[in-house]
C-alpha cells in the first residue's frame, strides 16, 4: 500500500450534496464530486487488508484495494482497467449503489469507511472524460447468436460480455430505451440518463443490436427466438409489485411507485408520458409513501420536486437502531437507521405503522387510517390514527417477475418464490438453451447484483456455446 498509516493520518472526506433548496428545484444530480487531489488522498486511507472485506462485500467483487492503490499512485488508467475487469458499469454503481463494500470496509469497524464508491465513480468518470472508454470490438466472431431479453443492468452486462467474445447479440426491450429500472425507476436527480446513453452507445458500437418496443411473449414468441438464436437470456425485472389489500384500495389516487416514477423520468428525458396513461403528479398534494426502502425515497424526492404539499413515509417495521453493534454485524450490511438524501429534503417518517384502510370522497383518496404495531407486527390497541392524503404511493417492494407473457411462454420452471429457476453456477433454466439472470432469477435486488448475474450468466452462456470459458466468472 502506498501509505500504511493513511487511515490514521487522513480524515475521511466524501462527496457532499448541493443544498436542499437548490437541488429540489430541478431533476439534476446534486452530488458534488471530490477534487482529484482529495480523491487521491482518500484512496490512501485504504489499508490494503490481507482479507479485504470490501472485495467480498461487493457483489461484483471489485478489487477495491488494488484500484485504490492505483488511484493513490495517480495511475488512473490502470485503475480503470482493473475496475472494468470486474464491473461493466461502474458509472451506475458509483452513483446509485448503496455500497455494501463500505459497510464491509475494515475502517468501518471503528471509524468511517474508505470512500470507495466515490473513488469508483471518480475513476470511471475520469475514464469517460479522458476518452479512455472505447468500444472493444471482438476480433473473431463465433457465429453464435444470442438474444438477451430485457435491457436492464443484468441484460446489458450480459450482452456486453457476450459481444466481446464474438457472439452476435440482440437485446429485446419492451420499452423504448435501454436501461430498465436504471432509466425508468431511478430518478434523474440520482442518475442523469445521459450516463446510460453514453454506455449504450459503446454497447452499440461493440455490435449489440437493440430491438426496442418489443415485448417478448406478447409481440413475438419465445419459439420465434428459439428458432433464430443459439441461446436466450431472460433478464427481465422483478416487476410484480407488492399490493396493499385494504379497504379503499380501489380509490383514485393510490398508485404503485412504478406507475409514478417512470412518468417523471420520461418527462425529464422528453420521452413523454404515453397519451393513454393518466398523469400522476404530486404537485400541491399531501403525499403518503408506504414503504421505507430506496424506491420509497425516490418517490419522496420526486414528489418534493413536483411540489407536494407534504410528504409522509410510513414503514411497518420498527425504527432501527441509530448505531448498529458492529462487533456482531460487521462486515455484513447492518440494519440501522439511515436517512436518504430524499428523506432529508423534507419528508416525515413514521415507523411501526400498519395501514388499516384508506378513506376517500367521491372516489378519491382523502386520508389514510393506520395503527401502530409491535415488533411482531401485531397491532397495538388504541394506537389508531389517521393522516390526510391526496396521493398514496405504494413502494413495498416487488414479489416476483410478471409471469404472464414471456415467462409463461418460455415454459421455464419457477422457484418457490415465483422467480425463474436457475442456479448461480450455470444460470440455466429448465428450458433448453434458455438462461436467466438478474432480478428475474434472484428477485428484486441491487443494480450491482444484476451486473454480477449478467456477467456470470454470460460466462455460462459462452461456455455453453463454445465449450470453453472465454469470460471470467
Amino acid at each position, binding site marked *: 500500500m502506498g501509505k*500504511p*498509516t493513511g*487511515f*490514521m493520518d487522513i480524515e475521511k472526506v466524501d462527496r457532499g450534496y448541493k443544498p436542499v433548496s437548490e437541488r429540489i428545484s430541478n431533476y439534476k444530480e446534486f452530488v458534488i464530486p471530490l477534487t482529484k487531489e482529495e480523491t487521491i488522498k482518500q484512496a490512501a486511507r485504504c*489499508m*490494503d*487488508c*490481507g*482479507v*479485504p*472485506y470490501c*472485495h*467480498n*462485500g461487493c457483489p461484483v*467483487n471489485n*478489487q477495491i*484495494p*488494488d484500484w485504490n492503490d492505483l488511484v493513490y499512485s495517480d495511475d488512473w488508467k490502470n485503475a480503470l*482497467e*482493473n475496475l*472494468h*475487469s470486474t464491473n461493466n458499469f461502474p458509472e451506475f454503481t458509483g452513483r446509485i449503489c448503496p455500497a455494501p463494500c463500505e459497510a*464491509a470496509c*475494515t*475502517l468501518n*469497524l*471503528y471509524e468511517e469507511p474508505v470512500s470507495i464508491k466515490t473513488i469508483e465513480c471518480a475513476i470511471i468518470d475520469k475514464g469517460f472524460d479522458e476518452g479512455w472508454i472505447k468500444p*472493444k470490438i*471482438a476480433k473473431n466472431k463465433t457465429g453464435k447468436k444470442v438474444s438477451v431479453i430485457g435491457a436492464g443492468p443484468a441484460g446489458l452486462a450480459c450482452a456486453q*460480455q457476450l459481444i*466481446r*467474445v464474438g457472439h452476435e447479440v440482440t437485446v429485446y426491450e419492451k420499452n423504448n430505451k435501454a436501461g430498465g429500472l436504471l432509466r425508468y425507476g431511478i430518478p434523474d436527480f440520482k442518475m442523469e440518463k445521459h450516463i446510460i446513453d453514453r454506455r449504450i452507445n459503446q454497447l452499440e458500437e461493440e455490435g449489440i443490436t437493440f430491438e426496442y418496443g418489443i415485448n417478448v411473449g406478447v409481440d413475438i414468441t419465445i419459439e420465434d427466438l428459439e428458432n433464430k438464436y443459439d441461446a436466450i437470456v431472460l433478464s427481465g425485472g422483478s416487476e410484480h409489485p407488492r399490493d396493499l389489500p385494504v379497504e379503499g384500495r380501489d380509490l383514485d389516487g393510490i398508485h404503485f411507485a412504478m406507475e409514478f416514477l417512470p412518468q417523471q423520468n420520461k418527462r425529464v428525458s422528453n420521452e413523454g408520458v404515453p397519451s393513454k396513461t393518466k398523469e400522476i403528479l404530486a404537485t400541491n398534494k399531501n403525499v403518503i409513501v408506504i414503504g421505507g426502502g430506496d424506491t420509497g425515497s425516490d418517490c419522496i424526492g420526486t414528489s418534493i420536486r413536483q411540489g407536494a404539499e407534504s410528504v409522509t413515509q410510513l414503514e411497518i417495521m420498527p425504527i432501527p437502531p441509530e448505531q448498529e453493534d458492529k*462487533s*456482531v454485524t*460487521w*462486515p*455484513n450490511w447492518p440494519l440501522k437507521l439511515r436517512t436518504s438524501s430524499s428523506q432529508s429534503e423534507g419528508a416525515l417518517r413514521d415507523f411501526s405503522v400498519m395501514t388499516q384502510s384508506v378513506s376517500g370522497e367521491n372516489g378519491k383518496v382523502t386520508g389514510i387510517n393506520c395503527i401502530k404495531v409491535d415488533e411482531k407486527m401485531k397491532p397495538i390497541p388504541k394506537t389508531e390514527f389517521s393522516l390526510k392524503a391526496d396521493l398514496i404511493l405504494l413502494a413495498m417492494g416487488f414479489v416476483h417477475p410478471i409471469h404472464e407473457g414471456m415467462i409463461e411462454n418460455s415454459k421455464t420452471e419457477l422457484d418457490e418464490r415465483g422467480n425463474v429457476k436457475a442456479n448461480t453456477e450455470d444460470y440455466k433454466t429448465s428450458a433448453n438453451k434458455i438462461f436467466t439472470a438478474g432480478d428475474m432469477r434472484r428477485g428484486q435486488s441491487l443494480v450491482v447484483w444484476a451486473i454480477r448475474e449478467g456477467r456470470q450468466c454470460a460466462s455460462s452462456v459462452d461456455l455453453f456455446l463454445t465449450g*470453453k*470459458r*472465454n*469470460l*471470467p*466468472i
Partner: protein
Amino acid sequence: MSKKTKFKIAGLPKAQGLYNPVNEHDACGVGLVLDIKNRPSFDIVEKGLAMLCNLEHRGAVGADPKAGDGSGLLIQIPHKFLKKKVSDSFSIPKQGEYGVGVIFIPNNENDEKKIKLLIEEVCLKEQINILGWRLCPTYTKELGWSVLPSTPIVYQLFLERPDNEKSQDDFEKKLYILRRCIEKEVLEISNQIQEGFYIPSLSSRTILYKGMVLADQVGGLGEKLGFYEDLTDSDIESSFALIHQRFSTNTFPTWSLAQPFRMLCHNGEINTVRGNINWMNARHKNLASPSFSENDLNKIWPIIEEGQSDSASFDNALELLVRGGYSISEAMLIMIPEAWQNNDIMDKNLKSFYEYHAPIMEPWDGPANIAFTDGKQIGALLDRNGLRPARYLITEDDKVIFASEMGLIPIDESKVKSKWRLEPGKMLLIDLEKGAMINDQEIKKNVANKRPWEKLLKLNQLNIDDIPSSNEDFESDYSLKELQKAFGYTQEDEKFLINPMIASGMEATGSMGTDTPIAPLSLKSKPMFTYFKQKFAQVTNPPIDPIREEMVMALNNYIGPRPNVLSLDQKEVSKFIKIDTPILDENNANKIKNLSNNNNSFISSEIIDITFNAKDENIENVLTAICEKAERAINNGKTIIVLSDKFVTEKKVPIPSLLATSKVHQYLINKGLRTSAGLIIETGEAREVHHFCCLAGYGADAIHPWLAIKVVENLSANSDQKKAIENFVKALGKGIKKVMSKMGICTYQSYCGAQIFDAIGLSTEFIDEFFTGTSSLVEGLGIEEIEKETISRHNDAFSKVSGLENLLDVGGEYAVRLRGEKHSWESDTVRDLQHAVRLNSSDTYKKYADSLNVQNEKLMTLRGLFKIKKAEDFSKKPIAIEEVEEAKEIVKRFATGAMSFGSISREAHTNLAIAMNRIGGRSNTGEGGEEADRFLTMENGDSMRSSIKQVASGRFGVTAEYLANSDMIQIKMAQGAKPGEGGQLPGHKVDQTIANVRFSTPGVGLISPPPHHDIYSIEDLAQLIYDLKNTNPSADISVKLVSEVGVGTVAAGVSKAKADHVTISGFEGGTGASPLTSIKHAGSPWELGLAETHQTLVINGLRSRITVQADGGLKTGRDVVVAALLGADEFGFSTAPLIASGCIMMRKCHLNTCPVGIATQDPELRKLFNGQPEHVINFFFFVAEEARSYMSKMGFKTFDEMIGQTQFLDTDKAVKHWKTEGMDFEKLFYKPDPWDGDTIYRSEAQDHDIYEILDRKLIKESAEAINELKPVQISSEIKNTDRSTGAMLSGEVAKIHGHKGLAEDTINIKLKGTAGQSFGVFLAKGISLDLEGEANDYVGKGISGGRIAIYPPKNSKITPEENIIVGNTVLYGGITGECYFNGIAGERFAVRNSGATAVVEGSGDHCCEYMTGGIIVVLGKVGRNFGAGMSGGIAYVLDEDNNFKDLYNSEMIELEKINNSDEKIFTDNLLIHDKERLKNLIENHHRYTNSPKAKRILDNFENYLPKFIKVMPTEYKRVLMDMYSSKETSKNSVKG
C-alpha cells in the same frame, strides 16, 4: 553404479510409514589423546577410555537404559599386543608389514562361514596373503537387551603386505581397494547379510574398537568389564587414541554408525551431504590418477555408497583423497576450507590455494569438529563457522589432550604447558613421523607455498568480467504481458515480490503466516517450484546469520569442467568461468551463450531449447532428447550447457525449468559427465528467491532470469533501470544466502545440487525419475499431471479472457482475491468465528466450522482429504455424548501459541493469558519476556501470567525469575512461518515498556539470531534442557519444532534429550514478520510432521515419556480430532484465538498499524482492542464440543484412547480433484506397533536425573541465606560432569525473592576444579561463584545478577592471559551481573548480552555479537567480527597489536577513544567517564582473580589508557545522547 541395491545400515529399522532411517542424525563428544613424540603406551589408551567415560553426558540413552548410541576408539596397531595374542596360531611380521582388518560379522554360524570364505576368496583374487584370523574376544553381558540381538562377532583379519606394494602407503591403498571389493561382494551376495556385516577398519597403521555400547562399556571402567577385552591388556599400546561418544536421534543398535570411522570422528553435521555424494560419484569420468589404475577406480566405485551417515560419507571421500596421494591435512583443508572468500587479511598465496581447489571440490558444508588420522598425521579441524566446541591442552611431557570440553581426565595442572581451543577454520596437527606439532599458521604456510597457486589459478580460471561483451540475443516477438502470462506471473509477483526488491534490494516481508492450499491441492496452476519446500536446520544443526556473519557466506561459483580431483601434479588445465553471483544478467548471459562464437577452444557453450510442442510432443520424450543433446554436446567438447526457454511461443510450451534442470543434472551425474561441463538455466519462470534456490538446489551452476529482468526494467521504466536490476539481483543474492543459511550452508558452491528440499504431493515414481533422492511424504502428481498443469497454464496465457487481456492473474497468495488462490481465513470465516464467540452462538460456530471442515474440490488442507471413520466401521457402537470426557477437561489440552509481548499488545497478550488460565489451558509468553506484575494474581482471582515461558534465540527477558514463574518452559527451535531464521524488532517498536521487559534500551532495535548460540547440536539441546530443568525443576520443558521431513527423528532425539514436551508446528503458523519466501516455501503441514513424529517415537519406544503437541493452523474441533488420531496429546492454536479476540487478518503486523489494537504498540490503536477473555473461552469450548461429537461417533470415552488411532483415518475417495487423484496417505496413516509397556500417548514422566547434583548441596547449605538473608560461605570441588552449577540455586532464590534477589555476596561459593558446561547459568543476584580452575562453554548464560570469577589453579604455571579459561558462548543472554575471567574466552563472548558486565583477557571471533547492553572489557586479543549486530552496551578493548580495526564489524558500531573526563563522579552515563569506569572494572578484576595482567595495567594505567578502544553502537549512542540531553534539559528547567 549399475546396482540399485542400497547400502543398509545394520540395526536401523527399515523405512516404514513416514519414518525413514535416512533422516537419522547424530552428534557427539569427540576426543583425542596423543603423544607428540609418537611414543606408544598403554597410558594413552587408558586415558582415551577414561575420557570417553566423562563425555557420557554428551551421549544419550534411549528406551533401553543400557543401550547407548555407540562409542569407540581408534588407535595405532598395537603390535606388541597382537603379536602376543596370535602367537599361538600364526606369526606376524614386523609392524608396518601387515595389515589388520576389524570385521563385524552377523552372529550366526552360517553367515560367519560364508563371509569368511568370501573374504578369503577376494583376498586371493586381489593377491593378498592372509596370515590368519583372530576372533576378538567380546564381553556381552553388560549390553542392553535391545542391543544384544544385533551384536556381531568381531574378527581381526591379518594380511601380509605383498612384496609389490613398495611403501606402506601403497599397502594402505591396496587395503582400501581390497576393502571396497569385499564390501561390494558382500553386498552382492545378500542384502540381509550385508546388514550385519561391516568392516570398521582395515589398515596397517590403525585399528578401530567401536560398538553400540555406552561410553564406559568400550573398555570397561574400573572393575566393570568392557565389551572389548583387548583394551584392558596393558600390552595394548598406542601413541594416540581418537575417541567418540555418540548421541543419535534413534534408539536402534547401529553398530556401523558408531564412531570413529576409519579416518575420523566427527562432531557436527554435513548439511550438503546429498550434493557432496552426488558430486563425488559424478566424478567418475572426470577422474584419472597416477595412484589408481582404471581398473582400481572401477573396483572402488562408487566412492560413497548410498544410505550411510554424513560422517561415514565424509570418511569415504577423505579416504579417496588420502589414498589418491594427498596428505590427510591437505585433504581436510580441501574438503572443509576455511572462509577465504571474504577474508581480506588472509595471505594471498593461501587464498589462491583455496581458490584453486574450490572448483576441484565443493566444500562439505556444515558444522564440523573433526578429529582425524591416517596413522601418520593426526589432528583436528574446525569448520569455517567454528560452531562446535574444541579445546585442548599440551603438557610438558608432550601429551596433547583434545576434546569437546575440558576436564575429562584429571591432569596435574602444574605440568600443563598451554591450554587453547581450536578456532574456526583452524587445524591442530601432529606429525607423528616427525614427532612434531605443527601449528595452524605453519600448516597453512606450507600449503600456500607448495606451488604457485595464483599462476595455476590463472591458467584455469576465467573471470566473467574479463570476457568481452557480445552481441545481444534475439528478442521474443511477444509482448511483455503475454510472456509474463506464459510463465504464470501474477499481479502479486510484481506488487509483493519484485517491486520491494527493486526498491530496497531486499526481499519483502509479510505477516500472519499462510493459509492457502499447498500446491498439490490448489486449483490454480502452480509453478513446479511450489511443490518443493525448503528444508531448514533445527536442533541437530545450527542455522547461520547470513547478515551479521556474512564473512562466512559466499555466492561465487565456477561454470565449466571441474578439474580432476586426483590430479596432484596440477598439469591438466581445465577452463571454467568464475562468477561472483549465480544470477546472470543479460550481459553476462550473452557472453556465455556466445562463447562458441569466439575462437576459444577451451571453453564453449551449447544452447538447448527446453520448450516443447504440446500438440505432438510430450515432456518426458522431449526431456530425454534434451539430455541426449547435452551428452552429445559434452562429448563433442562443449563445456557449458545452457538450457533455455526463451524460445517460448504460443505453440511452444516451456518445460518447467526446475524439471529440465534437475533431469539434465541427474542424467549427467549418472553418465559421469556432470563435472565435465557447467549447467546454466536461462528461464522466464524464475522470479522469486525460492525459484532460484530450487534451481540451484537441483544443479544449476548459474541462472539467467531473462523475463524477470525485463519485468524489472518495465517496472522501473520511470526511474533508474540499472539500479533497479542491480537491486533485484542483490535482493536475490541475499535471499539465496538466507535460504542456504537456514540449513547452515555457507557456500553456493556446495548448495548447488545439494537438494535441500522436501517434495510435497509428487509421486515416488516421478521423484525417482526426475528428482532422485528427494523425500516426498505424500504421494501425488506424476509427469502426466505436471504436463497437464504446464499446458493448461500455457493455454490460459494465450487464451485472452475478455476483460482480462491486459491484466495478469490476480494471484491471491498473499492477500485474498476472490478470483485468486483460496484462503482458509477469508471474510466469511473470520466473520462467523467472531460473531459466534461474541454472541456465544454455537450455530454460528457450526457455520464457521462447517465451511472449514468441508471436504470438496476446494481443498485447503491435507486433512480435508481425510475421512474420519465411525465406530460402526469397526463393528462397534458409538458412545452417547454424555459419556464422552467433558469439554472442560478437553480444553486443558489446549494452548495458545507463542506470540511475544512486543509483537502483540499487552491488551491482546493478557487477554489470552487470562482466558487460558481460567480454563486450565496454557498461554505462551512468546519470545520477549513478561512484565513481572503479571506473576501476581489479580483482584478478581484472574491471572495474567503466561503458563508457558518461551526461550528463544534472542533470550530477551529470560531471567531466573521469569523461568521460576512458569509451568512449562518452551525452547523455540523454529517457528512455522520462518524456520531457521532470526528476527528483528525495529527500534521504533521498542517503547519504554518493551525495553524494560526485554532489558534493553527504548528506541534501539533488537535482533534475534537465527540459531540459539547454545544449541548447535542435539547434545547442546540436552544441555539447555538440563539448564532450564535445573532452574525450575517443577516446569515441564518443551521443545518447539517445525514440520519437515525428518522432524520425527529430531523429535526422537529431543525425547532422548529429556524434553517433557515437543511441539510440532506446521508451516502455516503465524508470524509478526517474516520474509515472504519463508512464509510460503519453508516447512510442511503439521499433518506430516506430527504423523512422522508420532510414528518415530513409537518405533523408538520413546512415545510414552513425552507429550506431543500439534500446532499451526488448527481451526476446528475436527482439526483437533485429526491431530489426535495422528498422535497429538495437546493442541496449540494461535491465529484462531487471535481472531476470536478481534484479529481480522490485516496481515500488517510488521507495520505496527494493526487497526484492531492487536499487533501494535501504538497507544491510540491499542485502545481499539475489544477482545474479551470470554470470546477466547467460547472458542475453545466450541472446539472441544465439536471434538466430543466426533469422539462419541468413534466410540471414544476418553481423549487418551483416541490418540494415535490412525485406523480411524482414511483417504476420502469421494473428494474429486484432478490433482489429488494419485494422492495417497498410506504412510501418514501407518500405525507402528509400540514397544512392550510403551503407550502411544504420554503416560509417564521423563527421568531428568537431577537428584544428586552439586546444586542440591549448595541449596542445602544456603538455606539460611535464602530464608533469613544471612550470608553463607560454601566451598566444594567441581568437575566437568557438574553441569549448570548455580541454576537450581538461582531458581530457588528467584522463586522467593524475584529478580531483585539477595544482597550482594549473600551466598558466596568457592569452587575448585574444571566446571562443566553452563557454569553459573541464570545466576541470581546475591550469589557469587568463585572458581579456581577453568570452565567450559556457556559460563554465565542468562546471568541474572550474580557474580562469577574464574582464575587458573594456584599451582598452574601457565600465563593466564595467553591461555583459555572459559569456553564458547559465555554470557549468552546475560541480564545483569558481573564476570571476571583471568584468561581468554572462546568464540562469541557476551553474545546477546543484555546488561552484564565482564572483564576477560582475550576472546575469540564474534565477541559482543548481538549485544544490547552491558559493559565488556577485553584486556587482550579479540577474534574477527567483533560487535556484529551489536546494538547496545559498550566494550573496551585493549588493542596492543593495533589491529582491532581489521577485526571489528563496522556495520552497527563505531570506535572511539577513551573519554578521559576528569569528573570523579561515577555515573551511569555510558557516553562519558570511561577512564573511571575502566579503572574501576580492572580493579575489580584484579581483586577477584588476582590477574597479573590487570595488575600490570593498573600499575601503568596512564600508558595503557591510549591503547584502549571504546566500542560504541551507533544507534545506541544516538539514543543515549537524546536521553541524557533531555535529562539535562529537564534538570535545568527544574533549576530554572
